[in-house]
């Protein structure tokens, strides 16, 4: 298995290389550049040209690419054009925000979805099952921004229980309890929104798997041996039914850094999704390329992780 893992990691290198080439060229194809947005009649066009030359935008693309890739290999992704800080610092800051938000969201998501999925599967066709299925259809059908706006207006303004924007209240000093609590408090509403919207897949998978598993021979065997029904569920069925969820778990872990554009925009939450969109519209090349590379890398790692997790959860599967 170790051999396979190492081989998979080695394959990532050419994959990432091709990705970097594609994204670099495509980013340059976009009309405009980071300086286009700065131009007003008060700015001197010659100065803008100077800045473009300094930034090397007129060099042939392969020279620009070579310069970028050699720096990138040393972990140096350059400065963001619009924020004027190191890309790594910028991504570090926003990534951390997104990471906390996603962690809380995913925890809530599993905390809601797994019990609901189990109840729905176990008591198939009962009233709770029907309500759960209805809930999961509705949450699946509601667009993210609609629910986010509803929650924001309901719980941010109508009944002002939660803060409505940002990640922390400015009056607290980092490192204090007030600061920590303020951070968590700001995370809650977006996290709950995110969690409610994401439950459908897990509920549906879990429910179907449990319904299928109920009729399996091993369940019958276990029952005939006299094992109590609740034990059969917790020991036998539950573990088997989690398989399809485990198959995604690797992606879930690496997806924590992806961020959600809608949630972040509506809740004014400075995270990765927003950073990515803003970077694209401002033509902030260094940020765009670094982010795509990061997302690409995470996806590859995610699929590897998923395979590894699968092999741990399901001993029948062996990575060869």
């Amino acid at each position, binding site marked *: 298995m170790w051999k396979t893992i190492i081989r998979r990691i080695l394959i990532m290198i050419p994959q990432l290389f091709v990705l970097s080439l594609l994204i670099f060229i495509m980013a340059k194809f976009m009309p405009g550049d980071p300086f286009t947005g700065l131009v007003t009649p008060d700015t001197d066009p010659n100065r803008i040209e100077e800045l473009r030359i300094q930034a090397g935008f007129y060099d042939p693309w392969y020279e620009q690419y070579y310069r970028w890739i050699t720096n990138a290999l040393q972990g140096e992704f350059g400065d963001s054009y619009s924020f004027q800080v190191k890309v790594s610092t910028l991504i570090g800051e926003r990534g951390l925000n997104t990471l906390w938000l996603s962690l809380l969201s995913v925890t809530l998501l599993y905390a809601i979805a797994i019990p609901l999925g189990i109840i729905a599967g176990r008591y198939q066709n009962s009233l709770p099952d029907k309500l759960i299925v209805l809930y999961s259809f509705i949450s699946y059908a509601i667009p993210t921004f609609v629910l986010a706006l509803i929650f924001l207006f309901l719980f941010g303004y109508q009944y002002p229980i939660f803060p409505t924007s940002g990640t922390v209240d400015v009056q607290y000093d980092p490192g204090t309890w007030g600061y920590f609590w303020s951070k968590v408090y700001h995370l809650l509403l977006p996290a709950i929104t995110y969690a409610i919207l994401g439950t459908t897949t897990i509920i549906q998978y879990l429910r179907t798997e449990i319904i299928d598993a109920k009729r399996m021979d091993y369940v019958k065997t276990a029952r005939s041996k006299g094992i109590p029904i609740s034990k059969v569920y917790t020991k036998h069925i539950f573990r088997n039914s989690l398989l399809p969820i485990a198959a995604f778990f690797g992606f879930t872990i690496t997806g924590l850094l992806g961020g959600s554009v809608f949630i972040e925009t*509506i809740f004014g939450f400075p995270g990765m999704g927003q950073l990515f969109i803003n970077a694209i519209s401002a033509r902030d090349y260094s940020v765009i390329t670094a982010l795509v590379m990061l997302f690409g890398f995470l996806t590859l790692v995610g699929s590897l992780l998923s395979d590894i997790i699968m092999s741990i959860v399901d001993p029948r599967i062996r990575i060869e």
Partner: protein
Amino acid sequence: MNKKKWSLFAILLALVLVLAACSGDKDGGNAGGKDKPEPKKVDTSAFPMAVDNKDEAIKGGALEVALVSSSPFKGIFLAELYEDGYDSDIMDFASNNLFAVKQDFLISDTGIGALKVDEKNNKATVTIRKEVKWSDGEPLTIDDVIYPYEIIGHKDYTGIRYDVNFKNIVGAEEYHAGKEKTISGLKKIDDYNLEISFKELSPAIYTGGDGLWAYAAPKHYLKDVAIKELIKSDKVRKSPVTLGAFKFDKIVNGESVQFLANEHYWKGKPKVDKAVITSVPPTQIGKALKAGKYDIATSFPATEYDSIKDAKNLTILGRPELAYTYIAFKLGKRDSKKGIAIPNPDAKMNDVNLRHAFAYAMDVEQVADEYYEGLRTRSKSLIPPVFELYYDDTLEGFKYDPEKAKKLLDDAGYKDVDGDGLREDKNGEKLEIKLAAMAGSDKDEAIVSYYLQNWKEVGLNVVLTTGRLIEFNSFYEKVRADDKDIDVFQAALGTGSDPSPAGAFSPDSQFNTSRFATPELDKLLAKIDSKEALDPEVRAKAFKDWQLYMFEQAPIFPIYSRTEVMPVNKRIKNYDKDHFTKMDLNELELTADKPIK
């Protein structure tokens, strides 16, 4: 079974209600053009520029300010380095600005600095008040006035301000090239006086142009940081030292800033204890203001006016923006080697009557009232009316007049030859005019289709370049490259505090995107920035001549001037947003503990 159905129904009903409540009365302005809805215009001239609050003020208090923005602010808090308007909005609370302005944005002597110009010798002297202190208690000296020039002129400076104006200072280029250690044109006379030598002076010097820099930078605080590192340093991003009414206290990067009253402020410590600025997404701002979360909203988007117009807890201030929206015709190409605009006599729109007809056919009044609720009004001149001295108020502008448009076209020989209701060009060939416009809010789409219909009514076949509205970056790239699929385009222009049109209209300017160039225009523009125009009356006359010429030739014509809306909570006292403000932030007071709901 019945029970289940009921519960399902109840849930659905609840959902429908919530959704309906959210969508609210947003779809009011759905004017397709045919059925003219009732205008719901507001009289923008009725917006006051200052609040009038007679209530008794409380002691201290915290001012809550919303910075309306859909993305985090950049957080570069130094006037020499920032490039983002939001950073500038934040810095206004702790501004390092040296000069106050009076009517027509002329520098007055009521600020920290005073300006004396020696027109004959191309020199200007900046004199600063004594006893002005930085927020850390250090005194302001003339070195702090010189330091910004050394930052901007430095070879490691990567911002946009090392420009043609800046090079107008004697010795700036030598300093930039690294040949000189200082800028030779800056002469420190004593601790409070600086003499600046310019290569050339124009009337712009009186509004802070020609290379004069209007801000101070705390040299004692910044001198240890290399210019190259300045933009990333904590001294700029986390703990700036400033001159304004408030001083930076805490900053959450990209989200919020807490200011405290600056006890060293030269006009006296502000009456409120602190001010907190928070970035708020545009989708929330209306709701947030009505809920009494904020006292003031800066960069309030005009499109959100609808959401606050009935609010009882707000006073809505308004002031004219120094910008207008315009329509321009592509009349040539830019020769980038020579750096000049070359007019093309065969350009589709190279007929004054066609251009005039095009302008008269647009029902701008209707659009301004209907879609912008009067927050935009028909603009008559390329100079915003705020510039009282230069604005030509005798101009009529292109008031909506389809009959006149038709007549102009008939007389000029644009006739409908094949009877399809659309006019052909003078040679009887089909005439298709391609209009490029920027994509923005959902209103833009509706407005453009309304205009397309306007033009059709006078028989002009106008279609959109690329068939739809164009994304901002692509739009400017196409316009600058003189794309062959653009005959006409719509864009907006900010004039800044010096309304000199040379930057946007002279033949050698890259921003002269209509590529209109005539010897007369050259003459008129040169006059505006000439030495004789240092005499305000000569300059005013030159401005008016130019405005009239541009109206007659119409290579570009303005469509709307804009009113900037500033909602302010009713607990605010002594607040004034006049461009030529007399009231300062240190006088601002609050009349309640929390913003009124």
